[in-house]
């Protein structure tokens, strides 16, 4: 299999602070890798190293077949990078931003055609002359993506590309990402939207600088240690208080207006139903398929349980560096 990205033993230290700790993963061509994790887990530091902007303390990175440390310039020509804070020029128009990036990447003769093509495929037609300053966030996001792929890079890095964008624009954005992957582009994306993580071929979950999971969404969902019960109840808070006292419940979490409860033994469901009936609540309970938010919480909680046993510091103590 051909890989767009190969990361081996990647480590980054800032003084005594370990931001990325022995991380390994591979992204095959044409696949989307979702990098998830709490704020401060080391996601952005990892991406910066993959782009060749930050030099790793230890480990090896191959991007588009090139060694990032030995050949940073070759790598930069072969990647597209879209950051959290879309690097666009606000006093330039849509077209001028694209021209600027095309120039930066040394695009020659076909520059005009390429820019036209991008404006069309990102649905920016009719906005060519508009200043970025006057564009809404969703349009800026499309333009930022167009600028990141102006040189047809075989590898694309997206750092929280959809933060704060509404569901419809997010869906349209992911359709564009899908079509790029369909053309063989290897993509790494970070996101806090767990429904978006479901679109990825593979998910890497980072926590406290380490990669604590690296698998397909389907397989991750099957790793949740028990059954998940969803409860709809007219008195959610009181129900939660009662349930917290029942033994055999691994975790209780609010999902929108519902409770998600993780149990190890399916018999516990009977006890839950009995307790809520006894309290005279109107409720519905059923066993449901876990989603990726359940997986995220489950995985992070289980490693935090271990780390709390080993050290007095909680993950709260960590900071973004």
């Amino acid at each position, binding site marked *: 299999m051909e890989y767009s990205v190969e990361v081996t033993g990647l480590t980054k230290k800032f003084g005594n602070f370990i931001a990325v700790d022995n991380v390994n993963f591979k992204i095959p061509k044409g696949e989307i890798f979702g990098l998830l994790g709490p704020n401060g887990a080391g996601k952005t530091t990892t991406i910066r190293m993959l782009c060749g902007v930050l030099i790793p303390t230890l480990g090896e990175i191959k991007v588009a077949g090139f060694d990032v440390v030995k050949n940073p310039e070759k790598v930069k020509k072969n990647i597209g990078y879209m950051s959290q804070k879309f690097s666009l020029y606000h006093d330039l128009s849509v077209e001028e931003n694209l021209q600027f990036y095309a120039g930066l990447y040394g695009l020659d003769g076909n520059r005009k055609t390429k820019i036209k093509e991008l404006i069309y495929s990102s649905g920016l037609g009719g906005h060519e002359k508009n200043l970025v300053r006057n564009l809404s966030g969703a349009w800026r996001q499309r333009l930022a993506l167009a600028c990141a792929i102006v040189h047809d890079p075989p590898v694309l890095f997206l750092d929280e590309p959809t933060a704060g964008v509404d569901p419809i624009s997010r869906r349209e954005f992911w359709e564009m990402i899908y079509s790029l992957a369909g053309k063989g582009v290897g993509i790494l994306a970070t996101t806090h939207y767990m429904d978006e993580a479901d*679109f990825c071929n593979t998910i890497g979950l980072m926590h406290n600088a380490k990669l604590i999971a690296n698998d397909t969404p389907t397989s991750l969902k099957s790793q949740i240690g028990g059954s998940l019960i969803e409860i709809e109840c007219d008195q959610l808070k009181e129900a939660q208080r009662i349930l917290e006292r029942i033994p055999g419940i691994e975790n209780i979490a609010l999902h929108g207006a519902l409770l998600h409860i993780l149990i190890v033994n399916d018999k516990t469901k009977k006890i839950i139903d009995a307790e809520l009936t006894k309290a005279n609540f109107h409720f519905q309970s059923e066993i449901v398929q876990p989603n990726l*938010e359940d997986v995220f919480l489950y995985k992070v909680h289980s490693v935090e349980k271990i780390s709390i046993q080993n050290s007095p510091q909680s993950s709260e103590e960590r900071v973004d560096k």
Partner: protein
Amino acid sequence: MRKNQELMMKLAIETKQLTKQYLAGKKGSPAIKDVNLVVPAGTLFGLVGPDGAGKTTTLRLLATILQPTAGNAKVVGYDTVREAEKVRKQIGYMAQFYGLYPDLTVKENLEFFAELKGVKPQEKKKRIKDLMSFARLTPFINRRSMNLSGGMQKKLALSCALIHEPDLLILDEPTTGVDPISRRELWHLLTEVINQGKTILLSTPYMDETERCDLVGILYKGEILTVGNPKDLIANLPFEILEIEAKPRKILRSTIIENADVISWRAVGDRLRISVKSAQKSKPGMTKALTKNGAEILNIMQVKKNMEDVYIFLVEHNRGN
């Protein structure tokens, strides 16, 4: 629900034909137009809408930061233009890109806002102590805010908005860019604020969060499309939902697009989420068509409708018109 009747009778916010146009004359189109919004005291009200719909403009008008072009707004009983000072004393406002001072510590930020808001010196110490334990920031009281994680910064900004014990909180996307775990913690804090009898008006791009609101308003192109309780909004959708997982995806997609029962569809991770008049009636036909076209069905089931379905339905419906 949790509110007493007396509290519900009072209105925390009432706007009449509220309109804001940034550019005068024919050049500009209004950012919001004739918005009539009623938020009863003690309510958690969620404002959603595509980027550029006018959410931030609405919140800023209510927070007395902007002046309306036409119409008026009463906030906590006072006019936002004529009695702006009185409004400001009783509301807490948190901007999307919060105004924390990065080089001040947690404590110094709180002290600064306490002085700005005229909190009496003898009360200040206790307020800061209470808020720190409320937001679980006590161990970080002497840390500079730039060294806090994204989730902790949001908690600090929320605490600063609460320093003068306001009756109403206006929060512009308080959970954007925050990981799922910190997001839960923030919501836990917001629930506590509501339980103290305060009112919250917030905007969010997360549809699962709107399911926890008492009322949700959908803003589109500067106008309110609908306001309602999430449960009613969901129940009133004129369709049911089937989710299908099948291999290969290409055949799944093409079969669904051709099917006459399908009102709309979208990809959700590895599944397709399909709106149909009746899930029960459409299921056998779809199963048959998929099998005939050579797809292997892994899962086909009716699932609950949610606020994302409401949002997409309403916005796309209006977009089409």
